[in-house]
């Protein structure tokens, strides 16, 4: 269908548009028009991706400038899904007579997913694929191959090098599969192909990390224009991703490995000195001239990447005392020895980065400045020494990154040393954390560099939290509800068991037999009335283990067993995926199953339980973070001081966004239906409820709050019966689905212009 938002003709590849999609597009357009950032929340399963793409493509093609779209998503399957939606949209636009000449869209993912080399692509680990690839594509290897001959190179890569970027691939939309197929057919490496043509593309779809992780972003995302449109989809965890990308943990194994690497590095330096001291001198000269020149090396050589460095630092030259290769190796040795000494301390130490640096200077006379250039210098040395087996240097790169990060930032980071695994557990396992506390550090460059950054997800409430944490000012900030012709999900808050004892995962009562029994009874009753699959979430693995053990003793599990099979998520990914597979089988063949899993676990993020795979989801308790964690405490303190966010507010916000992520798993689209049970007394309190996304919150009425188990079961029965009645699709029209005339009715502009004149209009622009 085709309709107008203001004067922009939008072509939408379906016959009807949901009202919330239309509103979403309007809000998105406002944000694009004002060239400001936006935050949009829309329920899962309402076609967020296609709305985003249709509007932005329409915008791109209609207005001059052709703003590039950079679409960041979380996982590879999501990237692939977005690409196929894009492909469908472009086909539809073509059938509607839009020219869209030279439209070019593609996705980028790691070498492991794209490699077509017959031998390398057989490798199963991502790091190994990367290493094997570099062994054949690094510039010094290729230079050597020219003179010596018997070195294996990657033909696919060589083919890319012979062509100009514009000649590599015809324009169009390529899914990841299309890209590898094209690579195979034409003997080109899809990975490098994608990287080469990114500057030419109109739409790029890739993972968050390519944009946020400073190490990777430097390689991939550096050439985008300022008015590109950057979209972060499923971005409810964006602050954690930012923080993770700048946090480094060092344990004894890392240190041992890096000592070994430094030794090897030293040997290589010696070797090179004897054979070819010319190169080392060249490098020294280059370093004198300044860092930027060194960085001008070709992108595929940039291998040991460095964390974010402010521009003024990059303009400086590398300090004299680490310019010489053997000096630098000795410097690294000293630094590692220092860290080893720190590891021998038997008590917890938490300090700011300046005090950590001060201590280093007092003990080892290492100044701040050379530390800051550590990562840069290491990368340069590795390049000079022509080292290809980089995975062996991973630990050393980590240590160098640690040095650089903690000497670059004064605020927003903390150095924390913990000798034991946990306070109760006295197993010695010393870890040195460099914890990033400020999510804004990683994402700030993105907000500054691009005019429009859109953050969108199914669960962003409460929305005022993100602008404060990420330090940006959105011009558009909206939350949309789902318009439904029938109420296809039912949130229920269970606060009491059948015996009227309140249930809660509060620390004081969580192991109380009455609470455990009532939680168990709830699960038994649900297993009895809910068909097919039920997903149960617990706040943590620890709690799940203890409660499942208690259920085993008092016979709850046996009762559940009579109705459904039980599967459990474990921290082990392989085990979990087997459990998931069997769970799905049991949901398909009528046996029925319960999946016990953990909020914040693998299952709660990214795995959908649509239709029969999840007719009900139950959240036992509120998934608060482990508040005794020192890193969390430090982060809370930092946020209170820097962003004026109260500890409790953040903890509740974080717990509830995970809870709503979990319960949102059950509903994937308007034909789906599911029950969402929140089993904790605290959910009925207004301060908790108000932090749930608006689309869930509006459905929490008096009747669904403060229920006991038996009342909830009654409601469930009724809901399931009501949902199983045949549903007349025509009832949706005009209510939850709009055709052109409904858009006009609601004050928009449908396709009132005749088809011909619109086509002309578009042609003129295209």
């Amino acid at each position, binding site marked *: 269908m085709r309709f107008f938002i203001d004067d922009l003709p939008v072509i939408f590849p379906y016959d009807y548009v949901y009202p919330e999609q239309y509103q979403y597009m309007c809000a998105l357009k406002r944000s694009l028009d004002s060239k400001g950032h936006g935050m949009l929340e829309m329920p899962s399963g309402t076609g967020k991706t296609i709305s985003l793409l249709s509007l932005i493509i329409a915008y791109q093609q209609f207005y001059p400038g052709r703003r590039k779209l950079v679409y960041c998503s979380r996982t590879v399957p999501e990237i692939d899904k977005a690409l196929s939606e894009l492909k469908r949209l472009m086909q539809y636009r073509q059938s509607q007579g839009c020219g869209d000449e030279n439209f070019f869209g593609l996705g980028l993912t790691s070498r492991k997913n794209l490699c077509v080399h017959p031998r390398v692509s057989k490798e199963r680990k991502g790091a190994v694929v990367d290493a094997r690839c570099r062994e054949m594509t690094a510039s010094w290897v290729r230079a050597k191959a020219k003179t010596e001959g018997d070195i294996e190179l990657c033909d696919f890569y060589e083919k890319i090098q012979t062509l100009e970027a514009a000649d590599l691939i015809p324009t169009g939309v390529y899914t990841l599969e299309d890209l590898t197929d094209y690579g195979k057919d034409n003997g080109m490496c899809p990975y490098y192909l994608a990287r080469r043509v990114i500057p030419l593309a109109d739409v790029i779809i890739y993972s968050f990390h390519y944009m946020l992780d400073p190490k990777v972003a430097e390689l991939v995302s550096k050439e985008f224009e300022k008015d590109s449109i950057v979209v972060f989809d499923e971005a409810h965890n964006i602050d954690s991703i930012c923080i993770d990308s700048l946090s480094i943990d060092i344990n004894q194994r890392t240190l041992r490995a890096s000592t070994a690497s430094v030794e090897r590095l030293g040997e290589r330096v010696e070797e090179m000195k004897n054979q070819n001291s010319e190169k080392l001198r060249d490098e020294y000269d280059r370093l004198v001239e300044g860092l930027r020149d060194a960085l001008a090396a070709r992108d595929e050589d940039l291998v040991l990447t460095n964390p974010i460095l402010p521009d003024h630092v990059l303009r400086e030259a590398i300090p004299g005392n680490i310019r010489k290769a053997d000096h630098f190796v000795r410097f690294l040795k000293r630094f590692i020895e220092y860290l080893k000494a720190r590891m021998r301390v038997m008590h917890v130490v938490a300090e700011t980065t300046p005090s950590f640096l001060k201590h280093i200077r007092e003990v080892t006379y290492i100044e701040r400045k050379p530390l800051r250039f550590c990562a840069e210098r290491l990368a340069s040395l590795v390049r000079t020494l022509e080292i290809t087996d980089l995975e062996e240097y991973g630990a050393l790169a980590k240590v160098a990154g640690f040095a650089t990060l903690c000497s670059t930032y004064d605020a927003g980071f903390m150095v924390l040393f913990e000798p034991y695994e946990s306070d109760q557990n006295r197993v010695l396992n010393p870890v040195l954390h460099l914890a990033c506390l400020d999510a804004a550090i990683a994402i700030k460059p993105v907000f500054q560099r691009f005019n429009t950054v859109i953050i969108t997800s199914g669960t962003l409430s409460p929305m005022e939290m993100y602008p404060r944490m990420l330090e940006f000012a959105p011009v558009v900030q909206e939350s949309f509800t789902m318009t439904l012709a029938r109420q296809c999900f039912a949130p229920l808050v269970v606060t009491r068991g059948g015996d009227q004892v309140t249930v809660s995962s509060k620390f004081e009562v969580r192991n109380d037999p009455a609470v455990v029994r009532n939680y168990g009874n709830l699960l038994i009753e649900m297993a009895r009335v809910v*068909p097919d699959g039920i997903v149960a979430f617990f706040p943590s693995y620890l709690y799940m283990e203890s409660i499942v053990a208690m259920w085993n003793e008092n016979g709850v599990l046996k009762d559940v067993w009579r109705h459904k099979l039980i599967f459990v998520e474990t921290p082990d990914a392989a085990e979990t995926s087997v459990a998931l597979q069997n769970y799905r089988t049991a949901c398909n*063949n009528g046996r*029925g199953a319960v999946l016990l899993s953990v909020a914040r676990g693998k299952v709660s993020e990214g795995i959908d339980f649509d239709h029969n795979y999840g007719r009900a989801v139950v959240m036992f308790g509120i998934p608060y973070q482990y508040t005794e964690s020192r890193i969390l405490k430090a982060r809370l303190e930092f946020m209170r001081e820097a962003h004026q966010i109260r500890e409790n507010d953040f903890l509740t916000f974080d717990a509830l966004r995970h809870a709503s992520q979990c319960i949102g798993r059950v509903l994937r689209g308007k034909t789906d239906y599911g029950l969402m049970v929140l089993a904790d007394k605290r959910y009925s309190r207004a301060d908790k409820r108000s932090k749930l996304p608006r689309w869930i919150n509006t459905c929490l009425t008096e009747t669904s709050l403060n229920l006991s188990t038996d009342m909830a079961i009654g409601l469930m029965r009724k809901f399931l019966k009501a949902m*199983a009645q045949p549903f007349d699709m025509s009832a949706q029209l005009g209510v939850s689905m709009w055709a052109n005339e409904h858009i006009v009715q609601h004050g928009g502009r449908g396709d009132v212009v005749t088809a011909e004149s619109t086509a002309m209009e578009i042609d003129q622009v295209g």
Partner: protein
Amino acid sequence: MVKPAVDDDDDYIDIDDTGPEGLKGADGGYAWEEEYKRSWDVIQEDASGSIQSSVSGLSELQRKRRRRLRDTEVVQRGIMRHVTVVIDQSEAMGVRDMTPTRMHAAMGLAEQFVAEFFDQNPISQLSVVGTRDGLAEKVTELSSNPMDHVGALRNRAQRDLAGEPSLQNALELAMHGLRRAPTHGLREIICVFGSLTTCDPGDIEQTLQALRHADVRVSMVHLAAEVHVFKRICTLTGGSFAVAADADNLRDALFELIPPPPLAAGRATADMVRMGFPIKARATDVPTPCVCHHELSFSGYLCPRCGSKVCSLPTDCDVCGLSLVSAPHLARSYHHLFPEENFVELPGTSVLSEACCFACGVEWNNST
């Protein structure tokens, strides 16, 4: 709850709750004599204060109207049906969300269903299969005598409910029985289930393939909720799947299955079927044995081909295998093939010239 209607002019003068008038129910009898009602189901106020009961009453009216507005198009329907009714006898049927239990409600309706089924499909055959404890057992063989089935169902209703049902076993057993049915007839399985799980010995997908191969239609009425595998089997075999919200709903859903279904496009071929129209045996002084029950009786019908005596029609002759029907039976089945036109609803009385109904003589008024 239905409150006794009290004349509001008088109620403050003489309020006599204990008097016989005050206790009169809506039907004129005493309240305790009335049928047991779940009053909390009748009136349900939701958060917005609306009363669902009135809404559901409206939808009931709509349903009735829809039932009356049948599809009158002439399509080829399979009027010779071979149906197996599968009844779930698992623990889940003991749940009391229908009065008194799901099992009793379902059995009562199943009896009505059988009677109505043979009334409208006289030349069809039916058998009953029960399933519990993961097993399936045959309750009655394929036959066209409604009394056989009703009697067996009554006996069944007294039995204990146990374990879980096995859909796969039940379907295999039913399919085995239907395999004998002639190819010109329609093979159907109608399940009444209350359980949300099925306890199967093997892969139910294979059963599904076998069902499709044998051209068996599976329909199901479920008493609790939509279960993926049940719905899948129903839709893939061309049957229907319905969930009954209450007893009325269950009745509607079951009775929807009574009119013979249209034939699938590929199967609509003309077949010659040999049938016999037996003569009624002349009453004799001495009882003669029948071939169907081997009992002595005074009356019966004589097969036109072999002359053996059967007790009731329609049936298959036990000696020569000829289908025996009477002309009214055929006629009754035929009305499904050529349905009468729907009645046209006319607004108000203005259109009508006569003041009363032509057929029954009742006077028109606005409420009818």
